């Protein structure tokens, strides 16, 4: 068979003429140390967000016997144990609304912060495995850690909705706050997520250096959980401890969520100030820290 006949046999000679795209100019430049460059990378690589978020979610349930059943099981068990200890044994009051409603909403909001921080901390260390060691901006992993955080939040939120429906039938009372307050709750949720991601920008690169950061972070988060009005409202505390809690920058967003969705008391001015200072410090500091540290990953490629 002649060469031309072989080509015809392979069918390649019939390929349609290409429309060569040559208007767009791409510049591949060295990695640049700049916070704006990091933010630019988030935009340029935004298409990676759903993929990385899905990978982070699936990593939890791969190689487990129960697989996806863990998705509702874990938050369910967490709420049940919290509700049993604080609402059952300790008889913590949650005002004029059932404790289950209060705790399921607060836990959902807390999960948003805690899971974003958890995956931001862990994800950067194993980021190379997402691309087989090739370059992609590691900050995308921290941003994508909001994926599993939002998913866990939605599951917890579903439990909150179930509790709302149950009590509206059982007690003929609607415990959901009026719609005009929902925006405040949404801003509170956004702030909690932002806090989680910001701290993850610091702990993520550090965990890539040493695993100890992960251990320390998990203990600190546990401590922070009890220093934030998640399992009890701040009004239940003696006055001298309230100020201490209001200095916690997470208190205000948590109270905004509770105010926005179940109509509890709004955050105090001191708590709001702590929150604003905290978001400025952690968000700016996190970006600065990550920007300085990412050169380590780039140079190691």
């Amino acid at each position, binding site marked *: 068979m002649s060469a031309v006949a072989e*080509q015809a046999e*392979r*069918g*390649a*000679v019939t*390929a349609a*003429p*290409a*429309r*060569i*795209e*040559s*208007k*767009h*100019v*791409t*510049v*591949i*430049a*060295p*990695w640049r140390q700049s916070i704006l460059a990091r933010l630019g990378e988030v935009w*340029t690589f935004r*298409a*990676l967000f759903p*993929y990385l978020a899905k990978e982070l979610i699936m990593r939890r349930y791969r190689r487990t016997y129960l697989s996806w059943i863990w998705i509702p099981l874990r938050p369910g068990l967490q709420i049940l144990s919290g509700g049993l200890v604080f609402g059952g044994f300790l008889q913590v009051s949650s005002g004029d609304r059932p404790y289950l409603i209060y705790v399921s909403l607060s836990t959902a909001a807390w999960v948003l912060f805690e899971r974003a921080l958890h995956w931001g901390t862990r994800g950067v260390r194993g980021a190379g*495995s*997402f*691309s*087989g*060691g*090739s*370059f*992609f901006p590691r900050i995308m992993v921290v941003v994508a850690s909001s994926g599993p955080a939002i998913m866990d939040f939605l599951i917890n939120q579903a439990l909150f909705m179930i509790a709302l429906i149950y009590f509206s039938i059982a007690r003929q009372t609607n415990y959901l706050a009026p719609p005009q307050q929902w925006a405040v709750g949404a801003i509170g949720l956004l702030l909690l997520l932002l806090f989680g991601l910001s701290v993850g920008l610091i702990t993520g690169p550090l965990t890539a*250096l*040493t695993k100890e950061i992960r251990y320390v972070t998990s203990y600190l988060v546990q401590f922070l959980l009890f220093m934030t009005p998640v399992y009890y409202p701040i009004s239940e505390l003696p006055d001298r401890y309230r100020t201490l809690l209001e200095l916690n920058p997470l208190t205000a967003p948590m109270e905004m969520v509770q105010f926005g969705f179940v109509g509890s008391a709004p955050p105090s001015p001191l708590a709001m100030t702590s929150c604003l200072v905290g978001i400025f410090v952690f968000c700016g500091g996190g970006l600065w820290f990550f920007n*300085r*540290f990412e*050169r*380590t990953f*780039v*140079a*190691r*490629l």
Partner: protein
Amino acid sequence: MSKASTSPDRLPPDVLLSIQGVSRATSTAMPEVPRWLKRVLPKSGLAGKGANVQDFDDADNPDDEMLEGSWEENAALDELSFDLRRGEGLGILGYGDARATLMRILIGALPPSTGRVVVRGRIAPLLVRDLTRYARQEVGKDAVYVVGRFMHWPKGLLRSRMDEIVEFARLDELDRLPRRKRERTETLRLLLSAALHLDASVYALDQGVGDDPDFGLRVFDVVEQRKAEGAAVIQGAQHSVDDLARLCDHVLWFDEGSVLHEGRPLEVAVAAHKGRGQKVHPLAAPMFAKLSEGGQQVDVGSDGTTVEFDLDMLRPHLDVAFLVEFHNELGKTISIDQPGLTHAKDPGAYRLRIFIPPGLLEDGAYRAHLVGQIGGGDSVQKRELLRFDVVSEGQSGSEADAEAAFVLLPAPDDEPSGTPAVAEWDVSRAAP
């Protein structure tokens, strides 16, 4: 191929790819641990990591070195610049990191350390290893979309062309393969097919297109067609210019991060052949020698002497030259060496004959060294093969114009009996 455009913003309209002073350093070491942390942490942990401990008291190490990092860096690419125009094909030849590093920079899998790459249009990465790295455990069309996310392939374009991509991949040809191998091959075909359907202006290939020759030929056909339509091609190969000759009009031959030779494929092939020096590891021993007649001593008489050595060559394609040095007790050194190289094609037993001419040595005892020079160009390595004693008698010292001679032959055992050995190799003669 031409020199790089000076201004990236004013890229000439026919330039599709411009490499402008691109360098890349590679490094693998861990970042430094801060000094204060090393003092307080146990040595069994990070503080005890390798070379970092040696720098423990280095006052120049700032405490924030954990952030700065400290690595041993090697230059994989050094200030590389060129332009690739419409319809041009450039081959990159090289064993080392340079070729793979350049390819990975082109597709965005590795950022350059300095310089920049300007691409007019889109690059089609037909790089099997990198595509599969990005795809990881994803298979089939999912892998195409995942790789597309990393490489900024337009999702809309992929969706609209997916039927063409699948059709070109001809997955039905793989039905008889075992499941795992079929999945792997299907995925690779789809990825390469997708890269071919991106309306790219530059096609990047490295080391062929995997171990699927039928599909590889189809890919090459299309790339050749695209080149004829005005696209540019850049292709890497490890050692053979002929791998590049189909698609490339110009070849760069890299060595140690910089360009050793460049030109048309034929020119580079000739240069590569001439300059080919077998790289031999410092610890390797590719040749052994002993005196054919046994013992450790050779007597040189008034008519000169032919000394025969049995050589065992353990490698094919060795370029060798020989040198004998004679040292007497007074510290005098006389040497004879073979100019040029002799190419020994096959491994095996050889016989080396060296004629020591009359008058070269004065009467007396000498310590002699047979030295082999292996390789060519810049990579010649000298190895001492044998030490032996020489006793010279009856020399007048007045016939210094006689020439030494070196002959390398197959060992007599390899020849048919009764037939004298015939040298297939160069016979070099040299004055002492």
